[in-house]
C-alpha cells in the first residue's frame, strides 16, 4: 500500500505531527530559558523575543520534520522489502 499514498498525505503525515511536537518543545524550552539570557555561539543577538521564539519554533519544526521524514522513509522502504513485487513510484 505504501506506494499508493498520495504525496500530499505523506507531507501531512510528516509536517503535522512535527508541528504539534515543536509547539510543545518551544513551550518547554522557552519557559526554561529567556531568549534575553541566551548568547548563541557566544554572540549577543539583536532579535526581539518574539523573533527568537519564532525562529526557535521554526527550528524545532525543521528538526522534527527531518526526524519524521526519516521515519516515513524507513517505514516505506521496509514495506517494499516485505513485498518486493509491489514496487511503485
Amino acid at each position, binding site marked *: 500500500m505504501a506506494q*499508493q499514498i498520495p504525496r500530499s498525505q505523506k507531507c*501531512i503525515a510528516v509536517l503535522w505531527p512535527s508541528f504539534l511536537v515543536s509547539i510543545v518543545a518551544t*513551550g518547554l524550552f522557552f*519557559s526554561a530559558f529567556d531568549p534575553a539570557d541566551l548568547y548563541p555561539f557566544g554572540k549577543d543577538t539583536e532579535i526581539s*523575543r*518574539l523573533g527568537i521564539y519564532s525562529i526557535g519554533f521554526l527550528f524545532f519544526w525543521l528538526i522534527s520534520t527531518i526526524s519524521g521524514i526519516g521515519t516515513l522513509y524507513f517505514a516505506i522502504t521496509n514495506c517494499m522489502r516485505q513485498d518486493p513485487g509491489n514496487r511503485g513510484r
Partner: protein
Amino acid sequence: MSVVDQKTPETAGNTDEQVEKSLYAKAAKIYPREVHGLFARLRVLGVLSLLGIYYITPWLRWDGQQALLLDLPARKFHIFFITLWPQDFIYLAALLIIAGLTLFFVTAIAGRIWCGYACPQTVWTEAFLWIERKVEGDRGRQQKLDAQPMSLRKFRIKATKQFLWLAFAGWTGFTFVGYFTPIMELGQRLVMLDLGPWETFWVIFYSFATYGNAGFMREQVCKYMCPYARFQSAMFDKDTLIVSYVPERGEPRGSRKRSADPKALGLGDCIDCTLCVQVCPTGIDIRNGLQYECIACSACIDACDDVMEKMGYEKGLIKYTTENTMHGRMSHIIRPRIVIYGAIMLGIMALFAWSFSQRVSLGLDVIRDRNQLYRETDDDLIENVYTLKILNMDNKAHRYSLRVSGIEDLELRMDLPEIRVESGGVLELPVRLQVEEDELDARSTEVKFMLVAKDDPALSATETARFLGPH
C-alpha cells in the same frame, strides 16, 4: 473495541484492502447540503458562541489592560486578575491535562460530541460553508457552477467567495496574534502598515492555516490529521452515545408514494431519498453503520426526521442511541469507565486548585559573589557578598523586609534604605553578611534568607545560601 470494527451486515463485506484504498484515494470535493432542525440549531449556537468568544476576548479590558494577554515578548501571561510567569508553566501543563481528561470523560458518555459541535475545525468549516452558501447558493447550484467552464460570471462568483474567505481568515489571523501582543496597538500598527516582521509572519501563517483548513481541507483534517479521531474509539463502550440508523426499521429501503402503505409494498421506513448522505459533511452513508469518519454532527438526524415527518412516519429512523439500546438492552450512564475517568479528572482538578491557591507571588534567588570567597573588613569581621534577585509576581507593588539566620550575631548590610519592588518588577539587590570570626565553626555554613512582604505576611519566600569563612 474500535468503532471501525463495529460493522453492520452492509459494511461487513468490505475487505480491509477496500477500506485502505478508500483511505488513500484522492478526495473528491464534498458539497454538504444545508440542514435545518434541532441539532443544526444547537450547532449554530455552538459555532456562534465559540467564534464570539474567540474574536471578542482579546478586546476585553481588565484594570486598564488587556484582560487575556499571553504576552510572549514580556514573558508574562495576563489572565484577568492573574499574572503567570514562565515558572508557572506547570499550571499550563496541568490545564492541558485537565482539558484532555475532560475530553475523555465526555467522549465516554456522549461520543464525539466535541467533533460535531465544538472543535475549531468544525466551527471554522461551518463559517466557511456559510460564506460559500451565501455566495454560490445551495448544494445544487454549487455543483452546477463547478461543472461549468470558466466564464465571467463564474469567475466573479468564485472571486467574491475567495475574497470573503481571505478577509475572514485574515481577521482570524490578526485576532490570533492579538492574544500574544496587545491587540489595540497591533490594530493601530496594522492600519499604519507598520507591523513587525514576525507579527506579519504569524498573522499570515495563521490566516493561511485557517483558509486552508476550513476552506479546502475540511473533513480531510478529521480523517487524516486529527489524532483524537484516531484514538477516540478507545474511550467508547456499548453505553456511549452514537449516531445510528435503525436498519430493523428502515430496511428494505426503497422509494414509494407518500400515500402508499410500505407494509403492502414490503418496504421498511427508509425511502432511500439519500438526504442523509447529502447533508453529511464527511460524505458518508450513515446507513452503512458506525464509521470512523462520522463526527457525530447529527446533520443526518435532522434531515431524516424532516423526511419522516413529511411522510407521516415516526421520527428517529436515524437517532442518538447506544449500542446497548439498539440491541434491546439497558444503557447505563454510571459504569466503571465513567467513574474512573471522572475520579482522575476531579482528582487532578482538585490538586490543581489547591496548588494554585498555594502559589506565592514572590520569587527569591540568592547568588553568591563568585569573585571572592570572603573578605575581612576593617573591624575584623568576616564578610560574604551576595546578590538577591527579588521577583514581584503580584499585581501591585510591595515593600519587603529581609532577615537572615543560620549563624549567631549575623549582620545584614545593604545600601538601599528599603526593599520595594514594582508589580512585575525584578530587583537585583547586593547585600553583605558580616559576622565575628569566632562565631564560625566551619569553612562553610548554611545561611537562610527570609523575605516577607510588609503588608501581607503570606507573601514570603525563603532561600538558602553558603557563608564561607577561613576555618
